[in-house]
């Protein structure tokens, strides 16, 4: 594999999520040996309550100093002192579009996002980032196991599947973790209400999926085995999640969109529901 995953961004929102993300990345670091970690906080306001402003003025410090200090304290609590590779960046971009421009142009291999902060609405930043940024977004839930031993990459052989496989391969090699591809074959029964015996159709769908898998394998050598399962009468995200839990997976890598590439939405329903519903497995959303 040409290059490793080196540069990580961590989006801090000053909530308790920050500590969790730091703990997680710290553990992962022992496995991955990242080169650089940038902790980014987007300072969205310029106006502070008068009392706070005065208190800051009295000490001759800026908000920037205070926040850097606070975040550094947390970093030191996790990583210990002397962290030359950890930077605190307090960004003051005027709009989220500009912030995304900054992040995308910085060339991060991954950015860590908390699923939820403890004040209302902080999840909105994550939801915008995952939709608009080109950097892969790793969502870390509260109950995440902080190690990567088994990676699951659900694919549907659409545009995003190739980058998903590429990134998962990188991850699995760097972390020496197992990697399994998963393809859920969905039989939409509502289209065939009068067909009792679906065996033939299932066989045909499976044959087609296997053909597409072979094409993918031709393009990317080292493509690992792909498990094919039939979807049940539920949303595919649920099928994937249950499978992941059953297999003891600790990272799911998925494309932002699937084959139903409807431009009206910037994120596919499978990725969206995986991020929203899952409680214990980190989800890495590949954006390009």
């Amino acid at each position, binding site marked *: 594999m040409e290059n490793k995953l080196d540069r990580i961004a961590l989006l801090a929102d000053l909530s308790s999520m920050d500590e969790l993300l730091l703990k997680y990345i710290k553990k992962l670091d022992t496995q991955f040996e990242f080169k650089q970690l940038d902790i980014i906080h987007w300072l*969205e*306001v310029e106006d502070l309550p008068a009392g706070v402003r005065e*208190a800051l003025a009295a000490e001759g410090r800026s908000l920037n100093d205070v926040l850097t200090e606070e975040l550094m304290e947390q970093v030191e609590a996790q990583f210990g002192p002397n962290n030359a590779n950890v930077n605190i960046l307090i960004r003051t971009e005027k709009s989220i579009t500009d912030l995304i421009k900054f992040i995308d142009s910085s060339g991060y291999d991954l950015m860590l996002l908390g699923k939820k902060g403890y004040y*209302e609405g902080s999840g909105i930043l994550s939801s915008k980032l995952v*939709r608009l940024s080109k950097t892969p977004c790793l969502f870390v839930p509260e109950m995440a196991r902080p190690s990567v031993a088994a990676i699951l990459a659900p694919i549907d052989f659409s545009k995003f599947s190739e980058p998903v496989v590429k990134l998962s391969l990188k991850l699995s090699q760097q972390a020496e973790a197992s990697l399994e591809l998963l393809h859920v074959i969905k039989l939409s029964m509502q289209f065939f209400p009068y067909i009792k015996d679906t065996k033939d159709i299932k066989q045909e769908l499976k044959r087609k999926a296997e053909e597409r898998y072979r094409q993918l394998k031709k393009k990317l050598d080292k493509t690992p085995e792909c498990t094919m399962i039939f979807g049940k009468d539920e949303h595919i995200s649920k099928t994937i999640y249950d499978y992941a839990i059953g297999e003891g997976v600790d990272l799911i890598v998925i494309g932002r969109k699937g084959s139903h590439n409807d*431009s*009206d939405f*910037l994120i596919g329903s499978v990725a969206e529901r995986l991020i929203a519903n899952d409680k214990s497995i980190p989800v890495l959303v590949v954006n390009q």
Partner: protein
Amino acid sequence: MSKKYFDIHKPVFWPAIGLIVLFISVTLIVGDPMEEFFGVFKDWITDKTGWIFIITVNAFVIFCIYLAFSKYGSIRLGGKDAEPEFTTAAWFAMLFSAGMGIGLLFWGVAEPVFHYRSPPFGEGGTVQAAEKAMNYTFMHWGFHAWAIYALVALSLGFFAFNKGLPLTIRSVFYPILGDKIYGWIGDVIDVFAVLATLFGLATSLGLGVKQVGAGIAFLTDIENTVWLQVGLIAGITLIATLSVVAGVEKGVKVLSEWNIRIAATLLVFILIVGPTIFIFRSTIQNIGNYLSSIVEVATWTEAYRDKGWQGDWTVFYWAWWISWSPFVGMFIARVSKGRTVREFVTGVLLIPSFLTFFWLSAMGGSAIFLDLHSGTSVLSDNIIQDEATALFVFLNEFPFTTIGSIVGIILIASFFVTSSDSGSLVIDSITAGGKLDAPVAQRIFWANAEGAVAAVLLIGGGLTALQTATITTGLPFLFILLVMAYSLRKGLQQEYAQQEVLKQEKSRKDYESKLADVVWKNVQKRNQEKKSDPSDKTK
């Protein structure tokens, strides 16, 4: 200041120059057979593919109206916070001058009279023929024509201003081709657009000055020789050059505004000296007629009989507008930053159309009126004899002929200048790789190249041949436009989705109180540390 005099995109600039020289040489050397060859080709296109034009151009009108009234109507060219670069009045003036002004001067009188004398149905010279004549003329110059321009302009403007792609034709293929537009495919598309634009402009300029010359000869004793025409080209090119050097803001914009003022003067003149009440009455009736029969007229394909009328008129016009659309569309895009899709479509589709309708009713409509009431067909005979002098023959019917005619000549010349300079700006932009403002020397080069090509073709012959050739590009561009519509919708869809995501505001209050919380804690902590360790100094 940059010392660069030329800032060219080589893979487009040089092939374009090479092909222009090649085409001209071949046309000059081969001579008449070339005209025949292109003529046969053009006839084949209008004859066999006419129905594709008819249905597709209708689809463009529907597509434009759909965009304006859909949820995408609120998307602004240049992003949410973009502001219009030009006032609405100046914007209209430029749309009009670049897109149609010159044609309206030549055909405004002549076309309705042509249809009136030899209508597609029924007998010529009757009241029915007069009504039909206005109906068909309105269609050729109305919503359909402007929809073609609107589609191209909107696509170009959207991909240039919202997606940050270069302002050239290739950019509209981005959703389909992706980064391949920067490769050879993109270069080919752009070279094609340059050729269509340059030949379209140069041949119109060449044929146009023939007509201006005819006008001068009609009014004065000066003979309409080739040298008079070349002199006119030189004059027009000179003014156009000055205008492109001055840039859009000081050149094209100012000239366009003057065009509209002079055109308005001529219109008012006709209103006063002509059949005033008839003009107002007929404008209303003609518009009603046009609107009520638009579906029938616009989908008529001459299917049950084939007299070739449609190929000569409607399909010819559609091909003509389409072959001009890269140029006019790019120019309209260039001046439309900051308009919303809805504003844009109403601005480009509706308002120019209605102004055109008024103009046509006043010019051609009045001519028909005079002819109908004269009892003879002398006037209409004289008009259809030569569309170049039609305007002057018409003005001759009224008092103060000389004043009217002089205004007419000035107007024709100044519309030519604006077509020429806006065309040069467009070619500059394409051959500079999509930059909005190419270096001055380059602008001068293209403005003069246009004049030179026109003059060479005028002296050597072959104007008609190349103009015909330009019109034949209408067919391939028709398919390009279809792809454009698809691209544009896809792009707008994505833009809209992004806009919606960005709209969700995170609760600012919660964030502020959280921030305040963090700061307070930090300050208190410090204070405590200070108390416990008085020797610690803070800045």
